[in-house]
């Protein structure tokens, strides 16, 4: 496939996502504004007001209602999109499980923002990390280009007939959401063709016939029934099965998009940088990876074998890819932009450490909590992490498993 001519636009992450949603021919957007996501739905409402899209735009009175409207719209077969962050996402918590449980493939952008209290509008990953068990696929992006690309891919992933799982596209507050970047955008027709029309599996309805899996008065079905100890467990098992299938599908759709756009992000699940011969690896998610890459380049010039593994997919967790990518490193420093109080480290640390349990020999592994509430993470702080890893290697012993970088003491 030849790569179509792409325009370069100056867009922030929020605008890039709004444009991607527009080009993906979304049928329904139900949303409630919250910083730093606001620009996404604001821009989208402008598309609606200007008649550039035929999307039904539903203004709701809360995030709980916004996602409820999305679930219902999606259940009728509509391609559905929304966006939120922080307290807004927390208010959606109940409906996140309803979305995944009803297998309604809603796509939601999350502009990762700290949770209150104290109130804070800046970046950390507390809001979406706490939702990692809600049955949503989670993709964390490094820059606005990836935010654009991932949103387009997200509709294909969510609506894939083997999955029917909602997808969160997570981008760092302000660092990405409000910062202008050169973003290459595909022509409308190319995106439209890539995403295609939503298709439906067939289900047996209570009239005994097979009908498309969507609410339609002509072919009535019941979605979201009561299931107690007799069937609840089986339905949860189905969700886990779909999640297990998701890794391959995320990768395939990422590869297909790469053919269209010429852009790729590792294998779609993990993005390794200078890891082949690395002695020390840092693992992180989100925009910090960009800064880490710069530090890796500087360290490499000094002959230090530093590398980076960025997780693009956090749910499903690409365990095998993590094991492979970190097979030859001697030490791993895991960066967490959120904290699990009392959990002996952050969520990314927990997942990486658990993924490496079967690796032989185990690399040393240390956790670095950073950037809470938008605290800056400059290159010298990342360099400090690599120095700290070096010290542990010399000492041949982990002294402090969980470290705090950038906090005054």
């Amino acid at each position: 496939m030849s790569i179509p001519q792409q325009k370069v636009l100056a867009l922030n992450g929020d605008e890039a996502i709004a444009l991607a949603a527009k080009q993906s021919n979304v049928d329904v957007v139900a949303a409630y504004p919250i910083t730093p996501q606001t620009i996404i739905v604001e821009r989208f409402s402008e598309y609606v007001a200007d008649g550039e899209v035929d999307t039904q735009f539903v203004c709701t009175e809360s995030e709980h209602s916004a996602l409820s409207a999305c679930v219902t719209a999606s259940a009728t077969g509509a391609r559905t999109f929304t966006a939120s962050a922080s307290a807004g996402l927390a208010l959606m918590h109940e409906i996140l499980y309803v979305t995944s449980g009803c297998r309604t493939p809603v796509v939601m952008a999350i502009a990762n923002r700290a949770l209150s209290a104290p109130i804070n509008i800046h970046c950390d990953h507390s809001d979406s990390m706490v939702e990692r068990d809600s049955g949503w696929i989670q993709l964390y992006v490094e820059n606005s280009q990836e935010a654009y690309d991932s949103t387009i891919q997200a509709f294909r992933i969510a609506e894939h007939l083997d999955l029917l799982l909602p997808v969160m596209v997570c981008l760092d507050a302000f660092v990405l959401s409000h910062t202008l970047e050169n973003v290459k955008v595909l022509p409308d027709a190319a995106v439209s063709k890539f995403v295609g029309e939503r298709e439906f599996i067939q289900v047996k309805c209570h009239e005994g016939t097979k009908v498309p899996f969507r609410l339609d008065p002509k072919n009535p079905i019941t979605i979201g029934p009561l299931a107690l100890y007799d069937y609840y467990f089986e339905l949860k098992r189905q969700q886990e099965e779909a999640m297990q299938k998701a890794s391959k599908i995320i990768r395939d759709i990422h590869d297909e998009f790469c053919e269209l756009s010429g852009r790729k992000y590792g294998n779609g699940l993990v993005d390794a940088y200078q890891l082949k011969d690395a002695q020390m690896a840092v693992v992180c998610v989100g925009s910090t990876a960009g800064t880490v890459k710069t530090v890796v380049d500087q360290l490499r010039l000094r002959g230090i074998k530093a590398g980076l593994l960025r997780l693009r997919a956090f749910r499903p967790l690409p365990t095998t890819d993590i094991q492979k990518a970190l097979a030859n490193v001697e030490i791993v420093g895991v960066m967490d932009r959120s904290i699990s109080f009392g959990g002996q480290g952050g969520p990314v640390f927990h997942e990486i450490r658990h993924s490496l349990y079967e690796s032989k020999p185990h690399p040393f592994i240390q956790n670095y909590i950073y950037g809470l509430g938008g605290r800056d993470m400059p290159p010298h702080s990342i360099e400090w992490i690599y120095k700290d890893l070096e010290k542990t290697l010399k000492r041949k012993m982990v002294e402090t498993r969980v470290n705090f970088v950038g906090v005054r003491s």
Partner: protein
Amino acid sequence: MTRETKSWQDIPIAGVCWKPATEYHTGDWRTFKPVYASEKCKKCLLCSMICPDAAIKWNETKEVVEFNYDFCKGCGICANECPGRAIQMIRESGE
């Protein structure tokens, strides 16, 4: 509750019901059972209108109301509202 043993592979996605709700006999949730005394009944049919489970029907030939005990959950609203006190709630002796 109707007992089933289907596996997770064999049931429809997301709990889409493949059976009509009438196959679930919710009547066995009942603790108290409405018992009808036709001689006291004024045939106002208030009971059939207010029954939350639509479990009370008017039988035109016999000119009596009939209870569908497969679905009556024994809430007692009918007995409480009956102007002629023609319905009494009796504790189920049941297993």
